[in-house]
């Protein structure tokens, strides 16, 4: 029956338009893989250049350092963290932009703006908190804060993009709480949260939506 297929097409259009206008679907799985690799590279550089080759830091690690060593450590670790952040965000933006061009969609839409605002609020809050913790020499909470606030940003973002992002956020938050409970394993959990999880998520997204 002809009108029957018209109705099916109507439903298909409704579903497609609703989804495209309320969720940003140009996030790239490859971006996750790259971000994860960059994070692991950053952690490796930190371990070998600044942390005496140690991935698990004993309680008194920072106490044994001289003032001079400590300032070299602070500047070095902050620089690595900043470069990792900029590279990961840059690559994610670029790959998302490429994906939306490929799909013939705009990158800057009402939903992508909402996605961004919902991520920026927890990320900026976390960023400022980390700078405050840093200036108060409250090292133990820096890594947990990174993971927890990033996780909160993803949980927020999940409403405006793939659902998978929500679950990634939940695992990041749990990882952050673990890092707060077991500070010695902070860096290891950081590698898990920003490295391993991103790569796993990227592979899943790539296989699920981009192949």
């Amino acid at each position, binding site marked *: 029956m002809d009108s029957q297929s018209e109705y*099916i097409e109507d439903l298909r259009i409704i579903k497609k*338009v*609703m989804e495209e206008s309320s969720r940003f679907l140009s996030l790239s799985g490859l971006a996750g893989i790259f971000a994860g690799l960059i994070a692991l590279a950053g952690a490796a550089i930190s371990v070998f250049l600044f942390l005496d080759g140690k991935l698990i830091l004993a309680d008194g690690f920072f106490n044994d350092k001289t003032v001079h060593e400590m300032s070299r450590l602070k500047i070095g670790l902050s620089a690595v963290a900043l470069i990792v952040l900029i590279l990961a965000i840059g690559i994610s933006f670029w790959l998302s932009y490429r994906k939306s061009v490929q799909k013939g969609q705009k990158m800057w839409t009402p939903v992508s703006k909402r996605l961004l605002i919902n991520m920026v609020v927890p990320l900026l809050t976390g960023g400022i908190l980390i700078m405050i913790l840093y200036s108060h020499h409250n090292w133990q909470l820096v890594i947990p804060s990174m993971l927890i606030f990033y996780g909160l940003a993803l949980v927020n973002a999940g409403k405006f993009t793939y659902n998978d992002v929500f679950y990634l956020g939940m695992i990041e938050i749990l990882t952050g709480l673990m890092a707060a409970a077991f500070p010695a394993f902070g860096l290891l959990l950081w590698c898990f949260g920003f490295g391993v999880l991103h790569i796993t998520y990227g592979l899943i997204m790539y296989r699920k939506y981009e192949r």
Partner: protein
Amino acid sequence: MKVDISGLSKFFENRIRLGIMSILIVNDSYDFNSLKAALGVTDGNLASHLKSLEDNSLVRVNKKFIGKKPNTSYSATETGEKIFRTHLKALEDIIRKK
């Protein structure tokens, strides 16, 4: 088997109007240019369909200024939402009864 098509609304026989309503159901409001981009239609075409939805109180227009630029956005009215949901349910029922 005879199917009930009484829930279908003539407003949504047109796919552009159907698209406009689908967007406004899942978004509190949507501006003209974004609607245009999302549906891939021309200014004139979109404006005339929005006008007919507005005239029938399915859609509400919100005009405001961002800086000095006028910005027109649209929202679904309660009536519009009700008619659309009834239409959607009727479509689904028809397909299911096939």
